[in-house]
């Protein structure tokens, strides 16, 4: 593995919209590392 694990991509209409989603405490990407 090079550079760590990157398997998740979120594309939104804008950077701000993506940032808003990523700031959610219950977003799907938060759930993933918590289940490892």
């Amino acid at each position, binding site marked *: *593995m*090079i*550079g*760590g*694990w*990157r*398997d*998740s*991509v*979120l*594309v*939104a*209409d*804008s*950077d701000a*919209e*993506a*940032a808003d*989603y*990523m700031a*959610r405490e*219950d*977003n*799907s*990407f*938060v*759930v*993933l*590392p*918590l289940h*490892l």
Partner: protein
Amino acid sequence: MTETRHSPRVLALKPDTSMPDEDVTLQFCLDNMVISGSPRTVLDRLVALVDALGGPFGTLLLGYKEWDLPAVHQKSWRLMADNVMPQLAQLLRFPEGAGLSRQPGEAGQCRPHCALNGQSAQVNRASDRSSAAHPPPAAPPDVRLPDHRSIRRDHGQSNRRVPASRDWPVRRDPAHVQPAVQHPYEPTRPLEPCSPPNSTA
């Protein structure tokens, strides 16, 4: 997260094995494992990922997680398919037509071990050469992999046999092995440093 941090699995989350376990935080994982943003931002970061890996790879495999807001992720995949992948595929498969901006020593340089660094001079020379004296290389052949889906769909009715596990690895006649296709890689825009921007946070 604390439990993960103290288990061997934490290695999977580290970009470098020398990284202290305590630095593997939830925010670090989100910043490093997730590429998020507008189509342009995602494209830039995928290009940076290709750069960090030393050149194009065969398949981009994405995980799909819609545990919270399915509509958000469904839109993400539509944007990925419509606005990101066509440009990424064009960049990786037809780099000759792409503009070149990378210069040796620029901020966008990869890590020292990155194979792309050694290609920088060649890449820049390629942008200066005249088409008459130095015609551009032919586009790489369209190499298609076997369609394994057809093997699965017919439930063994096809003449194509799926090798049993004991048959692996399949011994191939060297005469039938196609030479590896070398894809010249030329990024179209200044690349971000290999380390994600938030990795030092």
